[in-house]
């Protein structure tokens, strides 16, 4: 089954199948994005979206509330497709670029 995936409203949202699933103003816990072991990233805009296996990913512009780093991230997971439907990542999940551990 094919899905549509895009940024919407010039970076306000990650849109999956024409539903606004993630976006600006969210707080994400992140690894390997800033100087913190686990950073507290305020998402200010979605720059790009992608797919990695079953994971839906996004590159976002934002700022870490702990170390103050302003950055555009690599692809971070926002959710995954399970049995044909999209499931967002839990709010508190720690996100990291797939190739970093």
């Amino acid at each position, binding site marked *: 089954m094919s899905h*549509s995936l*895009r940024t*919407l*409203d*010039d*970076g*306000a*949202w990650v*849109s999956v*199948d*024409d*539903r*606004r699933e993630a*976006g*600006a*103003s*969210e*707080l994400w816990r992140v690894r390997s994005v800033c100087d913190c072991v686990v950073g*507290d990233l*305020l998402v*200010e*805009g979605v*720059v790009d979206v992608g797919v990695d296996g079953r994971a839906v990913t996004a590159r976002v512009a934002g*700022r870490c*509330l702990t170390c*103050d780093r302003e950055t555009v991230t690599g692809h971070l997971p926002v959710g995954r497709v399970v049995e044909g439907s999209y499931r967002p990542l839990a709010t508190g999940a720690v996100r990291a670029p797939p190739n970093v551990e």
Partner: protein
Amino acid sequence: MPTDVERWKSETYGNEIREHLYEFAEEGWESIPDDEHDAWFERFKWWGLYHQRTGQESYFMMRIGTPNGVLEPGQTEVVAEVAEEYATGPAENPEFGNGYVDWTTRQSIQLHWIKLEDIPEIFDKLDAAGLSTQQACGDSWRNIVGCPVAGKDNHEHVDALPVAKGLNETYKGHEDHTNLPRKWKVSVTGCREGCGQGDINDLAFEPATAVRNGEELKGFNIRVGGGLARNEPRIARDLDVFVDSEEAIEVGGALSALFRDHGDREDRFSARMKFLVDEMGAEAIRELLQEEYVDFELDHAGEDLRSEYSYNAGRANGGHADHVGVHEQKDGTYYVGLNVLVGRMGAADTRELARLADKYGSGEVRVTQRQNILITDVSEADLDALLGEPLLADYSPDPSPFMRGSVACTGTEFCSLSIVETKNRQVRYARWLKENIDLPSGVEDFHIHLSGCTASCAQPQIADISLRGMKTRKNGEAVEALDVGLGGGLGEHPRFADWVAQRVPADEVPGAIANLLAGFEDRREGEETFREFVERTDEETLADLVVPEETDYDDPYMHNTKLTWYPYAEADGMDEGPAPTDRDGVSLADD
């Protein structure tokens, strides 16, 4: 690869969108196929409709473009009527009630909670009054801004209104200029104060005098590539071109065509004119314009009036910094500028405004880029009676500087990009400052602009105090916060604010401003303005003066207002709102 937006635009864009809108309106919200939402909502923007944020599905923001901010006699009443009848939502705003008009920083009008099903009726009413939502959003000519008293101002250099109107009539709906790579914001200024704010627009016409055939000729210099959004603010750059009023229309279209052909359609983040000017340079753009887009020899820039600019400039040079108050027009009548706090006015008040404009003036109302409104053409004999009207107690022609200086964008109430609540918060800030703080003597203008995100719709970077939405942690909780910037302003030498304090919890911002103003008063030299003080003070000292502090100011919006369906609702959880709803506002069970 072309972006999705470019693909959708190449399929259906421009005037034809209106027919589709009417079909969807007829069939109802649910007739928009689920997998075509993104495409249609992008297209609807061209007709001035912006789908509201998550939690408010099926409701739209509607923008009405009023060229140069002019509402002709009769139009204000229709705006009030539409707001009253169609712009009411499922919950009240505690400051503004239900059904209100936003006068915007680009001299337009915004209404919220509009139902798709009501659009044909609304368009009928607007059409009949000569009002339009066409191209108010989307990738094309946006509402043209300018000095709101063009044609009336006692001292203006040249009447720019015919140029603003001419550009609007020529290029709104013009097929060749329908689909641009990105928005195209145009400003036309003819006055000496710089009220058109050309420096923050894609294309600016600025008052100037050139010598042609040995004779002095009044007209405009052209600047290009200004804009505030996305942490990449740019001041428009001098194109070294002078035009008279007629040439202005032609060259405006030529520059829009140049942008259409050369702007970046691969990446929306670098599509705006400001980036094309970065890339090519103003000189190369001038050459290209001359070679391929105009068929007469362009004049070089004439003598400008920039040294006199006072609007949003933070200088006490004798010119006005806004249009609030009573001012004489060149025909001997007066305009009365009313302060509309954060630009929002209830529908009933808007109706009363229309009545007062009819009774005491010509019926005309004008909107300024500081979210205020003007009643024009009032004869001297009627001034006192107008000033005594009850409406003017709420929308004062002589407000506290903190009321007068407040500008705020839409924020989390409706906007997808926003990080914090804005308008209601700014209303509370202004009230608290008015009650608790005295400005140093002689300081009459003090501008505080609050934007919910870096898109900068409230033009924060050109205020005395610049506020921008952020978040921080306070006692372990994520709370709404603001970055604080200083030193911005327009004028002869425009400058954008430096962000000297980051992530100040929103409830500590009034305290921070109070402390900063106390520091200013202590260190002030002579009669200097706040901007002048900031300019001669180093950034470290300034940062030290911004001391965040809790006060008796109370902020009811500290929690993450974006996680609510509506920040002021009794039950505000994302799943507790009724959206999407049917044509009568009844909740449609979500699949």
